[in-house]
């Protein structure tokens, strides 16, 4: 073939700059049967980056269960999975990370993360309905960490609020391992009628390929490769131009696309996220088993003098690629014109399975589409258990003396940033726009009404990096179990999950081991709970100068509520209701918030988790909720039983009291109050219904205990008839409510 572009000398330095190994380069030459042009080198470098190819993580992702009766589109087939929810309707959801961009420019980094995940969802044909964010930051005593937090939160608020999709929930966690490398994972859920599910595949020889949205600039060139490297001072220098999000433009793009889906003119559509035009052309061609030819000269630009290389690698935001039926062009263009959007035909579909890029008619790149996607390199990295792990796990808690003043420790844990109210964050998000948010942020899961099939979805994001550090397999299992428990507590039947794997550099065998163990745990839990993985994201190279971030698998769980009477919050509802604890207390202090907050240690083993038992507890909880026996349900997690009870008292409108009597402890008192044993749920119910719950529990062999009653204003816990905590709920509430805000000031 005649490759017009000047052949650039390919040196080892150039390969290194592109993040390619010599071995990979040889592989490229093998596919091309010649030396690549510089544009081709760029294309391979982004497509074979970890971010796009998952070359180090793909073997692990295969462990996830990905099939289920409800799945209309499976993980990996498209931008996001699609799940049937009955009555001809489906939902699509996915999580995406923007960790590195947020470390560099927190506001824009987080904002463009939201923009990206929204596009992933409306590309599937779905109207985005809700966002969630899972955030992790370092030590808040450090000034730069506060700056990162405020920047990220206002960036998410800026984008989500402006485009008018409510951010209905999420999570926020602090640990010094995230000091210079915050984790910013965003989740989006959308709804789509079955017949309108869109595909990101090219097809039909001669069909036109269109570009629509923002103009292309030099921003973000090499973003994908950048995201696939450690953050160092060196990488600071070569960081791409920061991408600026334009939520207004995306709103227009979204509305226009949704209008376009109403016609049957569309063949395939794909957003331009990481690796921009390169990724969208290659993936649509590969998925459709077709080829694509484009001319970069036709791409709308906002900077002059851009080379084909730059146009192909730009990561300018708010752009889409789509293929429509030949002859329907005018109709399609008219829709975008109505929304004042720039649209240009830049090429057409071919049948030779090649991605061909021209510049004013001359070929500058010509590569087999599959060599960029399915045939990308795949590595089985070495894995090794960290040397100090056994020692950490076998930490002897007898060396930590129980505090004399338990009530003081309680208040300390209650106001710790990981436990305290996240109101400062979610009040900055419009969480009510679209008038569907039934369970506002603050409860276990958020519940959103689907006006069309008149059903409700519950969603929650969870991950516990401390458990995952101490025992990644358990950490992985617990992330699934806990998000499931949250969804169940709101009255929903879990449907499916999306996951985000946030880990350090996979070339470190210890990091790879952590990831592998976590995935093994998550996969097993997903099987037991029958919640397939419908998509996700992998973010590696999350490193600080001092080492990798704690392993952080994050789960986004979605459940379905068929009937409005099932919707349950975590807050007590009536004075005199009986408080019931489901599950078992064990002496488990490892990895707990209490040990971290009071003793400043991350030690011990993660709590045990028996998945079958967990499933039994969750099923039981759903049964009693569906019997309409339950007033409130709250999952007992971070901070242990005492914190769970306090949170149940903090109803947004009424501050309840509670009077709790626990039997003489089989364990240390602090373990009883603050230990984080899994598979526990705190319910409240009227006295009559409480009897029914206890009877059913006995019948089914579910451990359940009446532990107290809801009262008016005092928070009281007695152990073995001795008062250990007695406080005014209002005072506790103030501590918990203001802690984060005061820290940020």
């Amino acid at each position, binding site marked *: 073939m005649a490759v017009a572009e000047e052949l650039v000398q390919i040196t080892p330095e150039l390969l290194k700059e592109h993040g390619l190994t010599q071995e990979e380069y040889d592989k490229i030459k093998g596919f091309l049967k010649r030396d690549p042009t510089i544009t081709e080198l760029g294309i391979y470098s982004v497509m074979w980056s970890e971010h796009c190819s998952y070359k180090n993580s793909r073997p692990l992702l295969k462990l996830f269960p990905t099939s289920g009766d409800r799945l209309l589109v499976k993980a990996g087939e498209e931008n996001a999975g699609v799940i049937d929810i009955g009555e001809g309707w489906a939902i699509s959801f996915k999580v995406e990370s923007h960790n590195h961009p947020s470390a560099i420019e927190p506001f824009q980094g987080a904002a463009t993360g939201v923009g990206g995940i929204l596009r992933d969802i409306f590309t599937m044909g779905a109207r985005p309905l809700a966002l969630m964010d899972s955030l992790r930051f370092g030590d808040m005593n450090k000034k730069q960490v506060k700056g990162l937090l405020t920047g990220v939160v206002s960036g998410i608020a800026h984008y989500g*609020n402006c485009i008018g999709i409510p951010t209905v929930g999420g999570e926020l966690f602090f640990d010094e391992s995230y000091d210079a490398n915050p984790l910013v994972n965003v989740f989006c859920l959308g709804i789509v009628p079955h017949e309108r599910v869109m595909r990101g595949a090219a097809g039909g020889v001669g069909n036109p390929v269109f570009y629509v949205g923002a103009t292309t600039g030099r921003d973000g060139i090499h973003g994908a490769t950048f995201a696939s490297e450690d953050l160092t001072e060196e990488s600071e220098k070569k960081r791409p131009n920061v991408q600026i999000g334009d939520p207004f433009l995306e*709103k227009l793009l979204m509305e226009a696309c949704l209008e376009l889906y109403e016609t049957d003119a569309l063949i395939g559509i794909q957003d331009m996220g990481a690796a921009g035009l390169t990724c969208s052309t290659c993936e649509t061609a590969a998925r459709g088993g077709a080829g694509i030819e484009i001319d970069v000269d036709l791409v709308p630009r906002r900077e002059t003098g851009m080379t084909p290389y730059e146009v192909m690698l730009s990561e300018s935001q708010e752009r889409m690629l789509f293929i429509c039926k030949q002859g329907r062009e005018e109709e399609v263009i008219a829709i975008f014109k109505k929304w004042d959007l720039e649209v240009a035909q830049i090429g057409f579909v071919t049948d030779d399975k090649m991605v061909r890029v021209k510049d004013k008619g001359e070929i500058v790149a010509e590569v087999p589409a599959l060599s960029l996607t399915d045939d990308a390199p795949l590595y089985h990295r070495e894995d090794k258990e960290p040397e100090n792990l056994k020692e950490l796990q076998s930490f002897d808690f007898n060396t930590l003396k129980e505090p004399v003043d338990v009530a003081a420790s309680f208040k300390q844990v209650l106001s710790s940033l990981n436990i305290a109210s996240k109101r400062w964050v979610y009040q900055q998000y419009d969480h*009510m726009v679209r*008038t569907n*948010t*039934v369970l506002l942020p603050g409860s276990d899961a958020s519940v959103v009404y689907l*006006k069309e099939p008149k059903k409700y979805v519950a969603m929650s994001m969870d991950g516990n990096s401390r458990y995952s550090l101490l025992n990644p397999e358990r950490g992985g299992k617990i992330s699934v179990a806990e998000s499931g428990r949250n969804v169940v507590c709101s009255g929903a039947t879990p449907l499916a999950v999306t996951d985000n794997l946030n880990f350090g550099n996979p070339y470190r065998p210890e990091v790879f081991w952590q990831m592998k163990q976590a995935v093994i745990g998550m996969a097993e839990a997903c099987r037991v709970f029958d919640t397939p993985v419908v998509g996700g994201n992998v973010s590696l190279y999350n490193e600080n100068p001092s080492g990798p971030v704690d392993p952080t698998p994050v789960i986004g769980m979605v459940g379905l509520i068929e009937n409005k009477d099932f919707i349950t919050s975590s807050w007590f509802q009536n004075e005199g209701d009986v408080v019931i604890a489901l599950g078992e207390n064990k002496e488990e202090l490892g990895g707990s918030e209490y040990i971290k907050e009071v003793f400043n240690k991350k030690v011990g083993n993660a709590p045990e988790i028996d998945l079958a038992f967990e499933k039994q507890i969750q099923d039981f909880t759903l049964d009693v909720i569906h019997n309409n026996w339950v007033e409130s349900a709250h999952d007992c997690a971070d901070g242990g039983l005492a914190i769970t009870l306090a949170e149940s008292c903090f109803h947004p409108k009424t501050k309840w009291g509670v009077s709790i009597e626990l039997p003489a402890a089989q364990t240390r008192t602090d373990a009883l109050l603050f230990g984080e044993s899994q598979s526990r749920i705190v319910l409240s119910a009227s006295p009559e219904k409480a009897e029914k719950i206890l009877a059913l529990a006995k019948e089914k062999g579910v451990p359940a205990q009446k532990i107290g009653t809801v009262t008016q204003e005092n928070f009281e816990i007695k152990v073995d008839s001795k008062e250990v905590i007695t406080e005014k709920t209002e005072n506790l509430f103030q501590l918990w409510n203001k802690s984060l805000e005061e820290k940020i000031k």
Partner: protein
Amino acid sequence: MSAKPKFAVLVFPGSNCDHDCEYALSEVFDIPVKMVWHKETSLGDVDGVLIPGGFSYGDYLRTGAVARFSPIMEAVQEAAVKGKMVWGICNGFQILLESGLLPGAMLRNDSLKFVCKHVNLRTENNQTPFTSELKKGEVLNIPVAHGEGNYFLEEDKLKELNSNNQVVFRYCDDNGETRAASNPNGSVENIAGICNKEGNVLGMMPHPERACDVLLGSADGRKMFESILKTSLEKVCN
């Protein structure tokens, strides 16, 4: 004969509460609604127009600044003069200020942050078509969601506004006291909503359309929609 008013809901590029307003009017209160694209020049045969919240034109530069130049705004001006109901909620309020249909301007919230939460409003004026079903002093619990709701008006004009009874809602606490702590954005004299002298143009920052169902946390917004229905009924009977 039907006494139901007909309403137009404007749609600007960047409007995002347009569907919510449509839903409240038509699904909850069965009021016929016509969605009107900003490039149109006529509202058609309607009794009122609702300018919904959102980020018209991205709210770039100043909220509402660009939207007020949209072709449809001339028709809104005309409707206002004719005495039809003109109701701006959130961004709609900001647009009404920019277009001069209501006095004053919006500044950024004094917290410099977007704020989304339920607030309390005290009804100051129940003589408007939008508030006739409310009692004077009645407290409503309705959400706000905005970054620029810090209402500003110079002192002498503020006096005029007060003496003309143009303040319709003020932020207050549970007991109806207008305290600084119950002001979510720093607006002057806790002002949450105002009307023109004639009372047919209302601008307010809180979102009554988000408070029409207890399931969503509050149904206190319903009375405003009920007021509109009542107003039209009276018009027909007279």
